């Protein structure tokens, strides 16, 4: 007898619908799975057989063929265990075909028939809606996540036996309530900008980075709080919208990083990969084509501490995603696109020994070594970092007795307002059909400010691209101030954040 159950497998970030067909017929007792299964799917054979037996159902000793359609796409992971088991039960007459028709099932089986959590459930839920599935059967631990997208009715399945009884209608399970797609409440965060004392210039740069989506490089000796500052950037960015939260949750779910029982992720992600990380780990890829750190930092912050220590190919690999907000990973089995719209915060020591400009310890670096160190940063990457700011060591008494800084919530209000202004201005320009060129591209600039910029670029020998960056940062500063046109003071402040352009080799 022939049976078919709907399921899905994860390709990249998306769920690919899979039809699980089972045919049980005469012949030598075998159990074969075809349709490009990977080893984890192959092993489903053993799990499914034990789970069915231990759930008090039977596997008759006949020839059993499992086909996973479409047959040309690779199927990965143990998520197909549950649909295979259901299809086998249908094919052997223990469950009616109409009971499973239109339901989409995913889940890994234990030998005792329990259903275990799997990655990528949110993506599966989206696929279920696209297929107009009647309902979605998922492992209990993934139910909140699946329901978060409010795609289709979601049932939390504890065991294979419970699934069968639910589908037969003998012991129906109540659908899991979805969380409403309002702006989700943010988790209580232990990090707040109020804990950062001193570091006025760095705090200001953080605010500008947040308001304009600029990338930021913090330069300072070890232990002055560069990581602490970077960790607080997510707390001053606008809250995740509902749609953004779903995107982020989907990514974490596919990567298998979503904790069980978790609904939507509501906090902006913060990722801090170590500098020994490989290019596939950062950019994405590997044999299973998993999302890399830059995708895990989507809508959040990617923090690269010790920037010059990162491998050259890793840093080069960041350039295209930083420009496009998307990364394309090409593999033999096809091309996968991962979203990667992140804010980059990088940190580095001011010199190889770390103590240049430190009032507590002397720097032991020769200028030659310093030049070598700075040369490790590729020019094209630096070009994409708008803000470089020094974080000097604060005096100890400032750390101990200084007043607490401004809290994140106050900064976030300004950042959100500035982003609104930028969006409104861009929309207005588009509505008027203006295709702006030249320095006025990002909004009006006063004549005095233009003259100032020209003189400053001459004086500091700024490249065209660097000048453009200065102008964009100045625009963000003006937005923070709610100023219509960019004025001299905005440009002058923006020029402060070009530290590396000024560290000329001839400095005494």
């Amino acid at each position, binding site marked *: 007898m022939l049976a078919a159950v709907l399921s899905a497998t994860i390709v990249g970030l998306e769920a690919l619908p899979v039809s699980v067909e089972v045919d049980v017929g005469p012949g030598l007792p075998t159990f074969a799975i075809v349709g490009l299964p990977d080893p984890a799917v192959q092993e489903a054979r053993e799990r499914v057989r034990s789970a069915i037996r231990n759930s008090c159902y039977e596997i008759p000793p006949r020839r059993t063929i499992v086909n996973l359609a479409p047959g040309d796409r690779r199927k990965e992971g143990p998520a197909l265990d549950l649909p295979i088991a259901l299809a086998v039960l249908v094919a052997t007459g223990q469950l009616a075909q109409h009971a499973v028709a239109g339901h989409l099932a995913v889940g890994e089986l234990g030998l005792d028939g329990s259903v275990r959590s799997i990655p990528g459930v949110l993506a599966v839920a989206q696929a279920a809606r696209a297929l107009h599935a009647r309902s979605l059967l998922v492992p209990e631990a993934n139910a909140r996540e699946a329901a978060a997208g409010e795609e289709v009715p979601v049932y939390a399945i504890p065991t294979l036996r419970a699934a069968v009884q639910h589908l037969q209608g003998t012991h129906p399970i109540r659908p899991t309530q979805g969380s409403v797609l309002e702006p989700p409440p943010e988790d209580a965060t232990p990090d707040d900008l109020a804990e950062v004392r001193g570091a006025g210039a760095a705090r*200001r740069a953080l605010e500008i980075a947040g308001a304009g989506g600029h990338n930021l490089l913090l330069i300072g000796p070890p232990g002055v709080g560069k990581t602490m500052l970077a960790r607080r950037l997510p707390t001053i960015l606008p809250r995740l919208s509902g749609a953004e939260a779903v995107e982020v949750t989907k990514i974490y779910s596919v990567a298998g990083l979503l904790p069980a029982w978790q609904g939507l992720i509501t906090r902006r992600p913060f990722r801090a990969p170590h500098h020994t990380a490989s290019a596939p780990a950062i950019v994405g890829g590997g044999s299973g084509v998993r999302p890399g750190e830059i995708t895990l930092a989507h809508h959040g912050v990617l923090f690269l501490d010790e920037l010059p220590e990162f491998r050259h190919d890793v840093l080069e690999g960041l350039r295209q995603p930083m420009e496009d907000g998307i990364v394309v990973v090409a593999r033999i089995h096809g091309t996968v696109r991962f979203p990667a719209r992140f804010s980059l915060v990088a940190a580095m020591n001011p010199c190889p020994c770390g103590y240049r400009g430190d009032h507590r310890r002397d720097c032991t670096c020769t200028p030659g070594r310093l030049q070598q160190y700075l040369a490790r940063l590729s020019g094209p990457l630096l070009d994409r970092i708008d803000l470089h700011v020094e974080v000097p060591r604060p005096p100890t008494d*400032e750390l101990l007795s200084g007043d607490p800084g401004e809290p994140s919530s106050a900064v976030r209000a300004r950042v959100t307002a500035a982003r609104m202004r930028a969006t409104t201005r861009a929309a207005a320009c588009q509505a008027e059909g203006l295709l702006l060129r030249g320095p006025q591209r990002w909004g009006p600039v006063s004549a005095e400010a233009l003259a100032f910029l020209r003189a400053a670029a001459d004086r500091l020998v700024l490249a065209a691209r660097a000048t453009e960056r200065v102008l964009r940062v100045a625009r963000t500063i003006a937005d923070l101030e709610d100023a219509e046109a960019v004025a001299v003071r905005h440009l002058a402040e923006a020029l402060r954040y070009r530290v590396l352009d000024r560290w000329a080799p001839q400095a005494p």
Partner: protein
Amino acid sequence: MLPYRMGFGGAPPAPEAPAPASGDEVAAWVGLSRLPGVGPRTIAGWVDRAGSARAVWQHLPAFIQKRAEAAEIVAAWKKVDPAAILEGARSLGLTVLVPCDPGFPSLLRAIPDPPPVLYVRGSLDEAASVAVVGSRRATPYGLAVAERLAFDLAQEGVTIVSGLARGIDSAAHKAALDGGGRTVAVLGCGADVTYPPEHRRLAETIATRGALVSEFPPGTPPLPGHFPRRNRLISGLALGVVVVEGAVDSGALMTVDYALDQGREVFAVPGSIFSPRSSAPHNLLRQGACMTESADDILAGLGLGSSARSGRSGPGAPCGVQAPSECAEGAALLLALLEGGPLRLDELAAQASLSAAEVGALVTILELRGLIRTLPGQMVMRSPAGRGRDG
């Protein structure tokens, strides 16, 4: 531009300048300077006895027969080709001076161990000169002091002598050039070699507005042993030595020892009692060095007097950037605060009661106008050229 000539100061009177040295004589001095184990004092003694370097060179074995390493010296004497060294130096554009040359600095001729040969890139003159020495790893305070003193002295027409090293040395050279004056760099390597390498551009400038001086032949690498010998020339070329910053074991103290041997005046600039870099100048002050707060103290200590400061004509700071009217008040406030010495950006903001944004903007504008400078660690200081003007 050069109101002071030699002889006003406390330096010993120079011997009479001899007639220009003939080619053979110069070659003989060059040859003598290349003999192993024979120092400047010995050579000076021999030349005194024989009457000319050429005579010593021709009859060298007679001078050294009592010495233990005579064989070695004779071997070198036979091998050295003074004419080739001389030719090489001249082809590099270097001037070769020997003590009997009229162009040889008279101050240097008077020290107990004058260099037998001086290789010069650029030109030397007899203007009053002061050496500024100190730590290679200077603090922002030390750099500010060196720059201020060198700049002011240069504006008074005093030549600044130093060693082209990192830190205080190069700050003094640069400030002297900024002040429109001349500066002399004494090297521990050949005059055609630049060490440290990042001062190449500075060295080129000095060659046009002063001189790079060395007693080592062209191509000599900067070996550690060369620098103590170089220090005696730094003090020897100057009427006085100003010590800005240095630790207890600083090379600057070696220069001071030479200065005392040579009868030069020693000046020391006090620093913070918390900084280990202050120990050398403070020890010197304790021992009786001239307390120095300004260029006037140095001019007075050397008997050069202080000139009226009106009508100073240093080169203006490059000033293509106009200060917008909106910033004038804040800029003036910052400059006033920085009169007290370098400050960190955060301290500056706190003392001026301005936000990080406002201070950032003002500092950039002042920096572009050449009135202040920023150093690593967000230290902000007034540039010497910027003093006496407001924002």
